[in-house]
């Protein structure tokens, strides 16, 4: 038998026909269609039962109610909590992206101690012993007053525990971050003689005169303000924005008053002057101030008549008078101060000038008015034991005490450290704040922190400050921990809420309350005795006393606002001897322009960095690749010789930065604006991986860490958050602090600058 070509032909054709008549082709086609549609590397999220868990967002002082949507217990989404008194279902983009913080690549996975250039994992026991040992050592040396604690705010029981800890060891060095709230408190204390915070019933005010406050850019309680702003249309309420730049608030306002930067308070006094001269003020109310008011009236009419204010501010006399009339005619007008997001302090006299308007109308403690909410500590603490060392140490004044309002100020602390040869602070604990990023002249702050022999960070992420620490005892992220929340941020409500642990901890972290309790116990003696609780949960329940049951069941308590028993009196004597508002740093000749920092709601600039989602929403007029973009009026740009998209060099007395240029008609000529919230130094491989880079080999081995020379990038331990880290310039490195003569707080909002093409 011979096999020839025809045989092959037959074979081939037969095979083809056979396959064609079998289901192979048809079936394989269908299967490959399914195959190409489901690639194994595309994640398939598991389905399951839907549930919601409510808690309170603590990313910012706004404290919105949020609902965590879960699938079979796995958190998949954050939504606003409908009916919650702060936000009624609305929620800002940072809160919405809260889940991203859980898995932030910069998170610290376990306690670590710095070992030269690398981080070394240690156990919680070792970590607490280490910190407690240092504290004991300092106390043994009789230096408890060299221990300091920097804490984001002083509300709630965790802050209470840290304050208590300092007291128990014997130190007054407890610092919170300056904010407009602090300035208001100082002012209320000075003008009304009350220990109270300022609150603004913006949802009911019918005329809102804002002096540079980023009312809808994150000022105060952001979502609460969004709601108040939206209801203006229906309520026919007016918003007037005094600002040198068309911010979102200015764009949304009924009237935009572009006063020159730094003259906002002059304008306020000009309006006061116009009101008084037209006798539009509430005479009954101001009468109670007596002679001081007459002095004030005389002072403003002489020094701040609309005509002269018009020259300083660049605002027409008629506009000033119009505003005066509108403000006076309004039923419930409120004037607000606190630049941008309000997370830095403002000059006391500027606030006083703005508040003088409120005083002239006497619209206090009623719907739509200015409220003075007396500080009530609703927490009940057991008695505190202080041994001799503690008593002696506590008697000493805090480092960086401001002369005027007699509290310690954080910028002053670092100034003092930098000014002394040896740091007066031997040990600093930091939680919920990132001073190396948020404080003005951030570079100097870093120097000061480096000067402190032992820095303990409780940060859950490797932020700008934590990376300078000697030891990190990482806290839970806010969704992983319980704590009590007390409203503030200028909201005219008194809400106590429980922020619950709604998600099991992702890493080996702890509640900061638990951390400090265990450190206290390890310090032993009277310090341990002052912390009688087994754990923080027990403490939380006990200090909240009667309100605990409501808190744990309802989640929050919305208390009625109480009108102070004694009618409010305004003391205008604050203006006596007043000579003018603090001006910004730098001489006009070498620095012809004014550099201001600008808050945008889409970028976080406080203790936490923006999430990947938030950064994604940032416009290309704020950030281009890794460059900050400055805003400049086309007219100014022409003069300087820069155009859209150009690289430019911004120089201030503090330093220079390479940025890109965005031309914007809405900014006053002569002013350049730079976004806040960029320029985080963590997450850049040069800083963390090569120098401090450490890859985790075994999570369980207590001391089994690793040194990596750059290359090793085990998932945990590199801290590279490339979504925000290393992007842009930190504007706070270009702006230096300015101490307010009246309050001692840092009140800088800008600096003189020049710009050239780079």
């Amino acid at each position, binding site marked *: 038998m011979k096999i020839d070509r025809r045989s092959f032909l*037959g074979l081939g*054709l*037969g095979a083809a026909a*056979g396959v064609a008549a079998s289901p192979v082709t048809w079936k394989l086609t269908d299967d490959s269609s399914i195959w190409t549609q489901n690639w194994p590397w595309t994640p398939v999220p598991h389905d399951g039962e839907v549930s919601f868990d409510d808690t309170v967002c603590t990313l910012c002082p706004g404290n919105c109610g949020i609902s965590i949507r879960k699938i079979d217990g796995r958190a998949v989404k954050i939504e606003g909590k409908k009916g919650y008194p702060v936000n009624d279902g609305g929620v800002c983009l940072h809160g919405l992206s809260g889940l991203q913080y859980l898995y932030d690549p910069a998170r610290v996975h376990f306690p670590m101690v710095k070992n030269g250039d690398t981080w070394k994992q240690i156990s919680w026991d070792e970590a607490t012993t280490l910190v407690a040992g240092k504290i004991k050592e300092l106390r043994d040396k009789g230096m408890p007053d060299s221990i300091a604690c920097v804490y984001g705010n002083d509300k709630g029981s965790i802050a209470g525990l840290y304050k208590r800890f300092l007291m128990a060891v014997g130190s007054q060095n407890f610092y919170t971050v300056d904010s407009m709230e602090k300035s208001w408190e100082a002012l209320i204390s000075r003008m009304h003689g009350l220990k109270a915070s300022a609150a603004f019933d913006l949802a009911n005010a019918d005329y809102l005169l804002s002096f540079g406050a980023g009312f809808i850019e994150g000022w105060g309680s952001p979502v609460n303000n969004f709601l108040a702003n939206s209801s203006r249309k229906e309520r026919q309420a007016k918003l007037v924005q005094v600002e040198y730049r068309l911010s979102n608030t200015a764009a949304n306002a009924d009237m935009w008053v572009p006063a020159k930067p730094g003259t906002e308070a002059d304008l306020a006094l000009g309006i006061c002057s116009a009101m008084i001269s037209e006798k539009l003020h509430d005479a009954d109310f101001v009468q109670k101030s007596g002679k001081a008011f007459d002095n004030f009236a005389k002072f403003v009419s002489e020094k701040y008549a609309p005509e002269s204010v018009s020259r300083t501010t660049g605002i027409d006399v008629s506009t000033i008078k119009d505003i005066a009339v509108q403000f006076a005619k309004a039923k419930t007008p409120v004037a607000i101060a606190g630049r941008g997001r309000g997370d830095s302090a403002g000059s006391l006299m500027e606030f006083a000038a703005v508040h003088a308007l409120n005083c002239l109308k006497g619209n206090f403690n009623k719907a739509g008015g200015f409220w003075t909410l007396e500080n009530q500590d609703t927490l009940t603490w057991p008695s505190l034991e202080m041994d001799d060392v503690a008593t002696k140490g506590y008697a000493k004044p805090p480092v960086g005490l401001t002369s005027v309002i007699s509290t310690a100020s954080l910028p002053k602390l670092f100034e003092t450290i930098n000014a002394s040869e040896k740091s007066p602070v031997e040990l600093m604990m930091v939680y919920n704040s990132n001073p190396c990023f948020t404080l003005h002249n951030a570079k100097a702050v870093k120097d000061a922190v480096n000067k402190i022999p032992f820095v303990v960070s409780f940060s859950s992420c490797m932020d700008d400050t934590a990376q300078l620490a000697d030891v990190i005892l990482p806290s839970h992220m806010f969704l992983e921990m319980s704590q009590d929340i007390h409203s503030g941020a200028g909201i005219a409500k008194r809400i106590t809420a429980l922020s619950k642990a709604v998600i099991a901890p992702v890493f080996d972290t702890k509640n900061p309350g638990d951390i400090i309790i265990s450190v206290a116990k390890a310090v032993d003696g009277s310090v341990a005795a002052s912390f009688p609780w087994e754990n923080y949960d027990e403490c939380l329940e006990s200090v909240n006393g009667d309100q605990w049951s409501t808190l744990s069941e309802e989640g929050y308590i919305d208390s009625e606002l109480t009108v102070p028993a004694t009618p409010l009196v305004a003391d205008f004597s604050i203006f006596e001897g007043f000579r003018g508002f603090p001006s910004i740093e730098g001489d006009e000749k070498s620095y012809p322009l004014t550099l201001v920092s600008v808050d945008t709601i889409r970028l976080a600039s406080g203790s936490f960095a923006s999430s990947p989602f938030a950064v994604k929403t940032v416009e290309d007029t704020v950030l281009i690749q890794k460059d900050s973009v400055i805003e400049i009026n086309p007219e100014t740009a022409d003069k300087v010789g820069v155009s859209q998209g150009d690289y430019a060099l911004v120089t201030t007395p503090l330093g220079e930065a390479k940025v890109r240029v965005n031309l914007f008609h809405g900014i006053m000529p002569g002013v350049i604006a730079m976004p806040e919230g960029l320029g985080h130094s963590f997450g850049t491989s040069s800083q963390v991986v090569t120098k401090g880079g450490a890859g985790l080999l075994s999570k369980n081995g207590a001391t089994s860490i690793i040194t990596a020379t750059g290359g090793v990038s085990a998932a945990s331990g590199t801290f590279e958050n490339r979504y925000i880290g290393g992007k842009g310039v930190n504007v706070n490195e270009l702006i230096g602090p300015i101490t307010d003569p009246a309050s001692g707080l840092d009140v800088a909002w800008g600096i003189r600058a020049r710009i050239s093409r780079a």
Partner: protein
Amino acid sequence: MSELEKKTENGSVGAAEDGASGEQKAGGDSGVGMGVLFFIAAFAVCFLSGWLLFPSLLYSKKEQPFNFNHALHVAETGGCDSCHFFREDGSFAGIPKNSSCVECHESQLGETEDEAIFMTEYVEKGVEVPWLIYSEQPDCVFFSHAAHVVGAKMDCVSCHGHIGESETLKPYQENRITGYSRDIWGENIWGIKKNSWDRMKMDDCAECHQEETGSKGACFQCHK
């Protein structure tokens, strides 16, 4: 390139020889005869392997973690929906979780080996049973049980067949290409179905929708 030349020359020479050679009894047609023979042989091999061998190559058999007696459970509990229930929000819970099972199986019921595996390997260890789901659809599919069972009053059998009467779980045949169960395409390799529950492809959904609602429906009706 002379090699090619040779080859082609040899080829044509060979062909010429073929025609002339008289080895085959069929004479001049012998080449064609061989061709036909080869054709038939190849056809038969390919055809048969396409029908018989191909399915067993395409699917791999997997055993369920342990056997489950549907018939017994139906008898005990009264119906499909006592275990495969709707949640309050109208979503369908699908395969029950251990937490549902232990409502009855608080402790071991009966002496079967399967029951013992369930208790020791899963309940006691707190691990969910990794059942292989015959009707598992790709992630892009959104299937509303509520619309079919409550809305259209369809019974479970229409799509899932008589699984409720089974006493043992049949082996799970996984399609090696798609990763889904053979039950989606159906037992018949051509995809021919006799009963409505024989197949679970999109075309089957569309066919029924066309009949019942007059339209195949928009994509998003069943996709996410």
